[in-house]
C-alpha cells in the first residue's frame, strides 16, 4: 500500500505512458469520428511525452534537458497537427455534413 502511493518509480511513469498510448491506439482503431480520432492521436503523442520525461529523469542528471527538448518539440508538432487536422475536419463537415470516416469514400476506386 505504502509502496504504490508514495514510492513512485520510473516504472509507474512508463506504465502510465503505455496505458495512455494504448487508449490512444484503441481510439484511432475503433472510433469512426474524425474528431475523436484526432483526440486519440493527441493522447498517443502525450503518452510519448510522458515516457520521454520518465527516461530523462531516469539516467540523465537533472540539468541535462535533452529529453525535455524532445517533449517540447512533440508538443509543438502536436499543436500544429491538431490545428491542421481540425481545419480539415471542419472543412469536411461543411462539405459533407458528416465527419464519419467510413462515409468519406469519394476517393475510393
Amino acid at each position, binding site marked *: 500500500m505504502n509502496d504504490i502511493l508514495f514510492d513512485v*518509480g*520510473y*516504472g509507474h511513469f*512508463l506504465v502510465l505512458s503505455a496505458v495512455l498510448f494504448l487508449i490512444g*491506439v484503441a481510439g*484511432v*482503431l*475503433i472510433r469512426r469520428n474524425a474528431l475523436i480520432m484526432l483526440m486519440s492521436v493527441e493522447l498517443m503523442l502525450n503518452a510519448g511525452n510522458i515516457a520521454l520525461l520518465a*527516461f530523462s529523469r*531516469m*539516467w540523465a542528471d537533472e540539468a541535462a534537458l535533452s529529453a525535455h527538448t524532445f517533449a517540447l518539440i512533440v508538443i509543438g508538432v502536436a499543436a500544429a497537427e491538431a490545428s491542421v487536422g481540425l481545419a480539415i475536419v471542419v472543412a469536411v463537415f461543411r462539405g459533407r455534413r458528416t465527419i464519419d*470516416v*467510413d462515409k468519406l469514400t469519394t476517393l*475510393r476506386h
Partner: protein
Amino acid sequence: MDPQSLTFLGLPALLWIPLLPLIGAAFNLILGRYFSKATVGTVAVAAVFGACVLAGILVFWGLFQHPNDAPQALWQTGGYTQTAWNWLEVGSFKAPLALHLDSLSAVMILIITFVGTWIHIYSTGYMAHDPGFARYFGYLNLFTGAMLILVLAANLPVMFIGWEGVGLCSFLLIGFWYENDAYAYAGRKAFVVNRIGDFAFLLGMFLLFWAVKSLDFADLDNLAAHGATYHDTTWGPHGSQVWEHEHLTAAAGILLFIGACGKSAQLPLFVWLPDAMAGPTPVSALIHAATMVTAGVYMVCRLSFMYVTSTTAMVVIATVGLLTALVAAFIAFAQTDLKKVLAYSTVSQLGFMFVAAGVGAFPAAIFHLGTHAFFKACLFLGAGSVMHGMEHGGSKTPGDITTMGGLRKHLPITRITFLISCLAITGIFPFSGFFSKDEILGSDWTAHPPGWPDWYGKLLWGGLLIAALGTALYMWRLYFLVFGGNERSEEAKHAHESPASMTSALAILAFFATVIGFIGLPHLRMLEHAPGAVHALWTWLAPSVASSWYVAPGQTMPIASEGADSTTLALMVGALSVGVLGILAAWGLYGRGPSKTVDRLVDGPLHDAYVASKNKLWFDEVYDVIVVRPFKLLARGLFEIVDRFIIDTVAVNGAAFVVGLFGRLARWFQNGQVQRYLVGVIVGAAAVFLVTDCHHHPSFDITRTGDSISLRAETGAGVAGSGAKLHWHLDGSTDCSVDKDKPGDPAELTVRAGDTGANVTLCVEDPVEKKTLVVTRRVPDAPEPTAPAVSGGNEVKP
C-alpha cells in the same frame, strides 16, 4: 579442278544440294502465305530443280573428261566427304555434320531430285485450288531436303536426322488435310508405327557405337576391312575382332533393319503405308512410293559392308522381304480404292528390294529401287490425274475403282502413261521393271550366302515369282477396271484430262520408266564384250557396296555368281511368261469390267481368300487387340491416376486450396479501411517487440592472459542494462544482499590470477524491476605450458 573445291557463298557445292530445298521450305513455310501461288510454286520447284542440276553436275563430274587426266568420276574415286561443322563431340563420340557423295548416294540424289522436281511441277497443277498451297510446298521442300540429308549422310547420326526429318514430313503430309479426322488419324498412325522402328534403329546405333566407338560409315567400313578388336566379352572373346563373330553384326543389323521395316513398310510394321494414302496424291507418289519408303533399302545397302558379315541378319531381311511381297500382293487383290492398290503394290515391291538386299545383290536392290521410283511415281501421279478427272466429273469418292471404267476415252495421256508403268511393274520386256525384277529373281536363284542352305535361294526365287504373278494380276485388274470396258458411273462419263503441268510430269516419268532399265542389262556372257556401259549400274556401284561375303578374317567369298547363259535366259523367259500370264488372266477376268467369272469365284471356291484379302488379313484388327487397346488402357489408367488425381486434384487444386486459404485470411486485412490496416501495423510492431529479445540476460566475459584475468560485464541492452548497478565477487560468493548499500563496481576489471577463487560472481541490480540477478562463471585454468618438441617421440622410444 575437282568437284570438292567447288564452292558457292563459301559453302561446298555438295552442302547446297540439301540446303536448297531447305531454304525453299523455310521461305514457303514462313513467308509463303504473303506471296501468290505462282511465286510459291516457282520457289518450290526452283529449289528442287536447282538441287537436281547441282546433283547432276556433281555426279557426272569427270565422266566425260579426257582419258589421260586423273580419274575424277565417282565410280573411280570412291567418292568424297565434306564436313559442314562439328555437330556433336562428346568424349570419343564425334558426329560431324558431314555429307558423303559416292556412287551409291549419287544414284539416290539423282532419283530424289529428278523425280522430286517433276512431282513438284505436277503438284502446282494438282494443288492449284488448295488453300494450304504454301504449307504444302513448304512441307514438300522440307521433305526433299531431309531425304537428301538422309542419303548423303556420312555417319549414322546425320542419317538419323534425315531419317526423322522425312518421318516428320511424312506425318505432316499424310495429315495435310487435318480437318478430316480419318486423315489426321492416318498421319498419327504413320508416325507412331515409324517411332517403333526408329526406336530399334536407335538401339542398333547405340550398339554399334558401344562396340566400335564410331558411327562414321568410313570408320565402320575400315573396321570391317582391317578388323577392330573387342574390349568387352559380351559379343566375342576378348581381343577378338569385332566382325569376326557375327553376334554383334547380327544384333545391330537386325535392330537397324527393324528401323528399316518401319520406314520401308515391311512386315509387321507395314500397316501405316496403306493409310498414308490419306495425303495428297503427289505426296503418295514422292514420299510413299518413290523415295522415303526406299530409305530402309538404301540404309541396308549403305551398311552392306556390315551386313555381309552376318548371314543371320541377311536371312531375316530376305525372309521378311519375301513374306511382305507375298502378303501385300495378296491383300492388293480385293482392294477397291485406286491408291490403296498402289500402296500395297509399293509394299510388295519394297519386299522385292529387301529380298535382293538380303541375298547380297545390293546393286539389284538399288536398281529396282530406281526403276520402281519412276514407274510407281508415274502410277501414283496417274492415279492422281484419274482422281482429279473423276472429281471434275462430280464424283464424291474419286478413288473408288468400281465406279470407273472406260476412262481411256477421257484421259488419253494418263492412260498411255499408266499403261507403260503397268507394263514396267509387271516386268514386260523392254520396260524398266523387266530388267530390275529379273535381276532380283536371278540373284535369288544363284544366291549362296555362307551358312545358308542351298535351297533357300530357290525358295526365295519361287516365292518372288508367285509375288510377281500376283503383281501382274492386281496391277492389270486395276488397269482394266479404271481404263478398260465402259463407264460404270455418270461421273466417269464426265471425267476429263488433267492440265499440262500434270500430264507433262506423267510423260517424263513414263519415258524414264520405259528406258531406265537399260542401265543394267542382264548378266549374260554373250554381252561380255559389249561396251562397259552395258552393266553401267554395276560398274558404277562397285566401289560403294560390298561385293563379297565375309567368311573369316582375311577370307571372303564373292556374292555374285553368274550362271550359264542358258540358265539366265531361262529365268528371264520364266519371269516374262509369268508376267504375261498374269496380264492374260486379268484380261480374262476384268478386260471388259468385272466379269461373271469373278463373281462366281468370289462367291464360290475363293470366298474365304476374298474375305481375307478384302479385310487386309485383319492386320489392323490384330494390332488393335494386342497393341492399341492395351496401350489405350494404360494411357487411360495413367490419365485417371497420374493426371486427374495426382496432378489435377492433389498438385494443382491442392495448391490452389492452400493459397486460397491464406488468401481468405489476408482478405480480412484488405477491406479498404485505414483502421484495419493500422491494426496490421500495430500488431506487427508488437510482434517485433515480442520477438526482439528485450530481456537480454546479463552476463560477463572472463579471459585469462598468463596471470592476469580480465572481466568485462555485459549487462544487456535497454533501460535495465544501462542503469544497472554492478558488484563483482572475486571469491565466487553468490550472496548479493551484502552489497545492498555499496556503490557500484566498474563494468571492466582486471585482476591477478591469485586474487580470485575458483569462480567469479557478478551481481546486477536492475533499477527498474528492483531485482538482483546473479551470474557465476568459472575462472579458466592457466594455459598448459608449451611442451618441448615431441615430434616422433613415440617412434624413437626404445
